[in-house]
């Protein structure tokens, strides 16, 4: 009987990291981050990493710690604002950056996991994003060709997972996690609740177990909120019910 379950991030990642490797890291901002796996990588001597992640953490949190350690050589992201360290390293030439439109980044990863080496999109035509890439006309409109993306390792955070690797994500913490889990040679998933097979409705599974190589129940989740935005209780009766 094959076993995917590991006790923690350190054991799940043991022996699988190497200098210069490419790592996909799930999350949008600090939402749905694989906090345990990032912390474990920060403890290891691995460096020269190419990290594919929509953002690069925030001051003192998430992937920022790997940046701070000097472990990251290159980021492939869509948005790296609100991160002074990133800007510093980039402007001083110590960090490479490949910016992708967010939807193109998501689709490139989806393509990488789905056996599609390239696809066409309208996004970025006529901008710097399309420079050096084939541009082709379909039905009278111009599209740019984008390539599928894969990684050596994906670190992913789900809400619930069973021991066979079936995953369920929670609210907007799904984001890039359920895409990246399909596109790496090795997939290490951390969950808040590790459950037995049968505890997840087969119709409600977001990620089938086939995509999960290793799974562990994470601990001490901080889940930091970047922009706490609330409304006062007395506003309940106002028309602002649509505001977001």
């Amino acid at each position, binding site marked *: 009987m094959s076993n995917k379950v590991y006790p923690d991030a350190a054991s799940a990642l043991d022996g699988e990291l190497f200098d210069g490797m490419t790592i996909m890291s799930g999350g949008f901002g600090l939402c749905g981050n694989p906090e345990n796996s990032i912390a474990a990588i920060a403890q290891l001597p691995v460096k020269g990493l190419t990290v594919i992640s929509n953002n690069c953490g925030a001051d003192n949190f998430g992937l920022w710690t790997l940046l701070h350690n000097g472990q990251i050589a290159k980021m492939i992201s869509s948005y790296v604002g609100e991160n002074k360290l990133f800007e510093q390293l980039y402007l001083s030439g110590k960090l490479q950056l490949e910016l992708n439109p967010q939807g*193109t980044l998501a689709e490139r990863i989806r393509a990488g996991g789905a056996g599609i080496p390239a696809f066409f999109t309208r996004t970025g035509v006529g901008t710097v994003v399309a420079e050096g890439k084939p541009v082709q006309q379909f039905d009278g409109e111009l599209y740019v060709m984008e390539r599928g993306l894969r990684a050596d390792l994906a670190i992913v955070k789900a809400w619930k997972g069973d021991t066979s690797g079936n995953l369920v994500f929670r609210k907007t913490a799904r984001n890039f996690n359920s895409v990246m889990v399909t596109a790496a040679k090795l997939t290490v998933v951390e969950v808040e609740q590790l459950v037995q097979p049968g505890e997840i409705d087969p119709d409600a599974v977001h990620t089938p177990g086939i995509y999960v190589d290793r799974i562990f129940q994470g601990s001490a989740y901080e889940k930091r909120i970047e922009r706490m935005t609330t409304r006062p209780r007395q506003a309940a009766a106002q028309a602002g019910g649509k505001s977001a």
Partner: protein
Amino acid sequence: MSWTRDQMAQRAAQELHDGYYVNLGIGIPTLVANFIPPGVDVTLQSENGMLGMGPFPYEGEADPDLINAGKQTITELPTSSFFSSADSFAMIRGGHIDLTILGAMEVAENGDLANWTIPGKMLKGMGGAMDLAANVKRLIVLMEHTSKDGESKILQRCKLPLTGTACVDLIISDLGVFECDKKGGSGLKLIELAPGVTVDEVKAKTKAAMTVALQGSPGK
């Protein structure tokens, strides 16, 4: 006099129609949600993977797993659904969103939009803006007419790196409302003035070709 930020958002909200699926950018566009007209049912998409965004949570009820694309804590509605980033942008790229309202640094009379970078000055990234610009059925720019230095943000051609080409349908600034000619050639059309603003003032503050075709009464 010109419009305040809230008045600009209120004017933009008049562009919402019943049954619309809408993506609002960060900044002034976010305010539009406060002015959705009564009886108009609008569903807000957040490109990090949510359809049917609710209001901000009550104090003490914020959920770190529930944020919008601006990373603000939000809430869900009975009609909400969650999905992955790939599915979210499949929705956007596939042309299923009726309207997006975005901020801008520069807009050109041909509908070109620049809102993501200032080379050598600002390093942030385009996020989902290029996807929205290239693929949403209708794009409205909501922005101050001039920069902090008083320079026109509406130009004959953008100088900053583009977010998208020929993608802006309508510009709502603090001075008025302008249609873009995305097919090119005929320039901007001024269709509405903010109260107290004159055509001459708009012309003086706009570095683009413009025709005037004011519709009905001036803006409220």
